[in-house]
């Protein structure tokens, strides 16, 4: 089941890791994505840390680490085909993170709460 952050990221539990992408709403607001800079796998991050740069035709934005933990994998294919973020945002994961706190997903919004947020 997906969870959502106020920064318009989706989180999907995969074993003891969390895959992170951006929501359809966020991808529509950004416009066509033309460049993505991903972090190094193995990097230890704190919650709220800006770890991905995402450039659309309009502006640069950051994706933040939703929780504290270690980056276990990054989606290198996405850097070569940044348009995939617009084509299918739920399939376009940016990185996987192993949270420092096992219950890290619990506090985030479910789909209904997120849809209410974006109105």
């Amino acid at each position, binding site marked *: 089941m997906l969870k959502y952050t106020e920064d318009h990221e989706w989180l999907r539990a995969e074993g003891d890791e969390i895959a992170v992408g951006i929501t359809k709403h966020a991808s529509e607001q950004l*416009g066509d994505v*033309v*460049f993505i800079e991903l972090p190094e796998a193995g990097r230890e991050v704190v919650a709220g840390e800006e770890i991905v*740069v995402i*450039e659309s*035709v*309009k502006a*640069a934005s950051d994706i933040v680490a939703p929780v504290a933990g270690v980056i276990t994998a990054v989606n290198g294919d996405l850097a070569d085909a940044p348009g995939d973020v617009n084509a299918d945002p739920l399939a376009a994961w940016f990185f996987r993170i192993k949270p420092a706190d096992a219950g890290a997903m619990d506090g985030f919004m479910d789909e209904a709460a997120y849809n209410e947020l974006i109105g």
Partner: protein
Amino acid sequence: MRAAPVNRCRAPGTEHEGDSMSEKLRRTGLYQLHLSQGGRMVPFAGWEMPVQFAAGVLNEHLHTRAQAGLFDVGHMGQVQVFPRDGNLQSAALALETLIPADVMGLAEGRQRYGLFTNRHGGIMDDLMFANRGDHFLLVVNAACAEQDIAHLRGLEGVRVRPVADRGLIALQGPAAGAALARLIPGTAAMRFMDLRDFDWQGAGLWISRSGYTGEDGFEISVPEASLRGFAEALLEQPEVLPVGLGARDSLRLEAGLPLYGHDMDAGVTPSEAALGWSIPKVRRNGGCRAGGFPGAARVLAELQDGPARIRRGLRPEGRAPIREGVALFAAETGGEPLAQVRSGGFGASVGGPVAMALLDPRLPEGTRLWAELRGKRIPVAIAPLPFITPSYKR
């Protein structure tokens, strides 16, 4: 830094998306049509304009280069300048005191590109002007329109009439000619920079073969009452998609066309903006109507001697867009910035980022500079302008 005040003549607080909406924004006659087409409206130069439609900026850009895009440019100022004595040459001479161009020599039904200069030799605005027989029609930038009209009203012997009852749309792309000719067959015979009158269902249209994308195309002034109907008739043509300001900017950038307030402003001279070509021999030193416009001494000296900086193209390595304001350096580390990027973004047809900046004209093409992005220096190469090959119908 230059002593001349840098006036970008922006409408207050309305240049960029996300700026305060508290200013009362103006809407063109196509506002409702834009909403029905999925237009995302943003504040721009005091107007509420579509930045993109459903297709998105990249698709709109590529579609314009492949077929035809329809742009609402009704925010731009249309201004008529009539001679008070009925002799058009009087108005031409008056305009030449503000614009370093050959206005006198412009034939009826033809249009030229020109500049308003200030007394420091900087550029107040850029414009199109056309000879319409009994008057000149000027099209100026939205954010500068008020300033330009006041400037023109300082002229003696002319009557200045801002055109308030007409919209302006641009149809651009290799299929623009075929699409427009289906509605108005006579337009097929027009050449680049012709401007002619046409009738469409009883409405008088002023159509020029020109644009701001590097493609063949038309700019069409339409009476308000017929504006939406005419735009819809164009959108019904199979080649035509609506295109927003986002793609308009990336198209003009690839075509190496400067944008006022960015690539040039009140602190940038015609030579520096690489627009010296718009100043013909007749207005230069030794010409029979040399000088006689604001800042002529500096502008003409610089045309002879060459400027210390000139607008150049930049191709960043990699995919990261290098945008306006990014500092450029000669080396990967240390040193003072050489310049800042004036405009930059992603060139969809080039397939990578492109940018422009004012740089030393002596630096050879291919010279590697460094752009500082998020604390890292990215290599960029000086590249020839335009980035694409224009296809004007000469």
